[in-house]
């Protein structure tokens, strides 16, 4: 089976500012592929270009070298004006910041995606309602983002992407800014939702535990210029209980192996 998403020899350097040397390569010769229905995690130290990588895949930024294939077809462009963010709604992107619209309530933020895509009907509304229930936001539908806690905002941002069902979802450390307990809960929520639909997910994190708890496979990014330094298949069977992930057989050994590769 050909991979759903394929990254080939990707490179990125930012354009030089006037009177300065061009920036060094942030990404170089970076290649990997993701199969349909796979949960891929990518671990890398801070500043390894993780967000840059996802921005390029989501086409909110251009690549300087290399190619990206989506469903076997090239979607690469070097021209910033030819970018197609989210390439025809096939790639969802859950960013580090929740980016909720402050003037929309929880339910209206979730429905925003459906509204702009012209897919708002009784069936999609029911789906949104079901997702809101599933992540424990029932009762908070009419609250504005500033009235929600950080964890609730993350959940809202997450289901805003899930509700329109893009085949691939990119996640950029979505749970980095919440406390450890909330994070574990959010991870459990995410896994539960994923078991329901088995989307293809590329999840970027600096947290090795998170990479193991969530992924089928974990890639390790090197320091800049980033490339794939190592690849690990996570041997822990699903469904996993993320709250006790440390105690599961295989966790400790995998953790040690990945830690050795993360510089």
């Amino acid at each position, binding site marked *: 089976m050909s991979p759903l998403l394929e990254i080939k020899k990707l490179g990125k350097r930012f354009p030089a500012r006037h009177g300065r040397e061009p920036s060094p390569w942030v990404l170089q010769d970076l290649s990997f592929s993701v199969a349909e229905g796979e949960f891929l995690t990518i671990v890398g130290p801070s500043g390894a270009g993780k967000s840059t990588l996802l921005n390029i895949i*989501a086409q*909110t930024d251009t690549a300087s070298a290399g190619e990206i294939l989506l469903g076997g077809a090239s979607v690469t462009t070097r021209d910033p004006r030819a970018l197609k*963010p*989210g390439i*025809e*709604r096939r*790639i*969802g*992107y859950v*960013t580090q*910041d929740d*980016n909720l*619209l*402050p*003037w*929309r309530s929880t339910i209206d933020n979730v429905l*925003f*995606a459906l509204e*702009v*895509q012209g897919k708002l009907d009784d069936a999609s509304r029911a789906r949104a309602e079901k997702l809101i229930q599933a992540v*424990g936001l029932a009762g*908070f539908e009419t*609250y*504005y983002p*500033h*009235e*929600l*806690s950080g*964890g*609730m905002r993350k959940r809202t941002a997450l289901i*805003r*992407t899930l509700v*329109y069902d893009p085949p691939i979802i990119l996640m950029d450390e979505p749970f980095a800014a919440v406390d450890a307990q*909330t994070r574990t809960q959010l991870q459990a929520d995410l896994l539960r939702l994923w078991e329901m639909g088995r989307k293809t997910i590329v999840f970027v994190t600096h947290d090795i535990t998170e990479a193991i708890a969530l992924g089928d496979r974990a890639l390790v990014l090197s320091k800049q210029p980033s490339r794939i330094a190592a690849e690990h298949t996570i041997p822990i069977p699903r469904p996993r209980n993320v709250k006790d992930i440390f105690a599961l057989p295989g966790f400790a050994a995998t953790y040690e192996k990945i830690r050795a590769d993360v510089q």
Partner: protein
Amino acid sequence: MTDVPATMADVASPPTASRKWLIHGGRAALALALIAGWEYGARTLGPLFFAPPIETAQRLWALAVNGQMLSDIMATLRVAVAGFAIAGIFGVILPFLLRRSPRATEAVEPAVLFTMGIPKYALAPWLILWFGIGDMPKLVVVTLVVFYIVFITTFAGIRGVDRRLISMARVIGASERRIAREIIWTSLLPFFFTGLKIAFPRAVSATIVGEFLVSTQGVGRYIEGARQVSDTTGVFAGVVIALALVLAINAVLNGIERWALRWQPVEREMEL
């Protein structure tokens, strides 16, 4: 549920009745002090320099009864509101058009900044030459005065829009029209209302100054007429009418703003 939103507990306590009375009491005391100072000025300097409050009130009453107040207000408002509306529309549309093209912005910006420096009131005599002594010269002056304020605040608002929200909307598949209409427009509303609230009193002032120069009716015409015959009470009455006009319109604008920005965190109790 452990995720109780922080704002529920901390912020939602409404101001107590006693604190509200304190505010109202303070306002009333300040108003009384101002009127007392006014009366004191009238007694020490004489009615030619300082029209007494009572006489001014009587004059206002007389103007209200004989209908002149209403017709003057309508004449002034007609020009002020029309100019305000025209300038408001262009002041908003132009930044939206320029937003799409950094090069056009760079080309237009110096012209805008340069022409902003023109003293608009000084154009009035020249405009009278062009348009005669009707509403037109005043309308042009008012429009110019308001346009720059709305243009600059709207432009600042557009520059301040959170790029990440736009990027999110593009990934989700929102059209550029949708992004302009919902994200950019809603984000800049606070700026827009600030612009309107600064601009409206100026629109009224500009109209009144225009009426000093050329007019047959209006609040400015009344003030100027009173001045020419050394009727200080008339001048004061006219100024009070202008103030009341600005206050009334500001209250309307505040109401609209509160409604349009009802999603914002309530910060009215914020202490600076």
